């Protein structure tokens, strides 16, 4: 788990650095584009679900984007 801790620490440090150094000094009134549905990471929920289900039943790798969702006998 030491690798896990290192990675979590790296993520926190990088994100903290980016927000402190003003890498993202984007103001609320400048977020019109970012608020558009195609700029979010969620996407079309049913499409994403079908696609992940198909890939996880044909390939060995799975996961990465979230937790939860039921397993099945197809893999």
């Amino acid at each position: 788990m030491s690798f896990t801790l290192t990675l979590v620490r790296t993520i926190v440090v990088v994100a903290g650095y980016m927000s402190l150094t003003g890498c993202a000094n984007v103001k609320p009134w400048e977020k019109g584009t970012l608020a558009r549905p195609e700029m979010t990471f969620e996407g079309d929920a049913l499409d994403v679900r079908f696609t992940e289900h198909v890939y996880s039943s044909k390939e060995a790798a799975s996961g990465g984007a979230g937790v939860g969702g039921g397993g099945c006998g197809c893999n």
Partner: protein
Amino acid sequence: MISLKYLDYQDSQSGQDRIGVHAPSIMVMAPVAGVWSVSGTFTSDVVSGASPAFHTEQLTKMKDHRKAVDLSVTRYFPRGSLTLGASHSQESDYISRGLSAQGTISTEDKNTTFNLGVGTSDDTITPSYGGVHEKKNVTDVMVGVTQVLTKQDIAQLNYGFSHGRGYFSDPYKLADERPRERNHRTILARWNHHFAFTDGTSHLSYRYYWDTWDIRAHTISGEYVQPLPYGWTLTPGVRFYTQTAARFYLPVDPANPSWPTFPSVNATEFSEDQRLSAFGAVTVGLKVAKQLSPDWLLDVKFEKYKQRSDWAWSGTGDPGLAPFDARTFQFGITRYF
């Protein structure tokens, strides 16, 4: 919001049909009292066709009907959210129950959002030929950060860890004895960029996966969302995938290609499942959506998938396996309230 989607999936090897899936699905999402949202999904999967008993040999007829329900409740806070979810999936020979919790918290300027998720699933496996009653338990933990980079760029980095114990073998395959433990880790990086001059948006993502069965996999995907006049949107996409073989995968014996490969006498772990071999895969797809009115959205998506042993980026694929292809078709309609 109510969304209906219909999936039609068909795969094949060397032009010969294997598994077909017809899956209607419905999702309902509703805000409650301003700070809550509830969401539910129901999917009915009818799976039929033939599946190889080992490698890509001895196609054996199968048919199953899976019913899956997911429910989730989200509470929104000024700078974050908390989601609790439950899922249940049932087939004649497989039941899976899952619980999950996910939280997000943003910095004051909302340019950085941290997320943490924990999920667990309990599965019961009872193959149709009887005599086997097995269990599998998987726990997933995920941490990540989403960062606004510019007015047109947003990126996400997730790290996931999964710990699984129990029955991982495929009860319908010959010579399939897998370890009773499987832990995997994933790193996922995603980046969305908006192009002012086309009004289009690109989605790029990379995932690295590695597990305790010695499988390592890279997934790179990209799509581009182009809005057009009259409510049309075109989204072409491409995906590249490669994996190494599980350390206990037994390749096709070139001397006896249509027979199972015999494990060595003292081997306790072995599998001749194509999905545990080394291979590479490519998907190309196109989604077309049409906003009919502010309340109604129609979409269709078509994808083609090819999996080949000699497309593995690292490690050696198994040249004795037949080439595998699949195509999916999705049709969806959404009503917003």
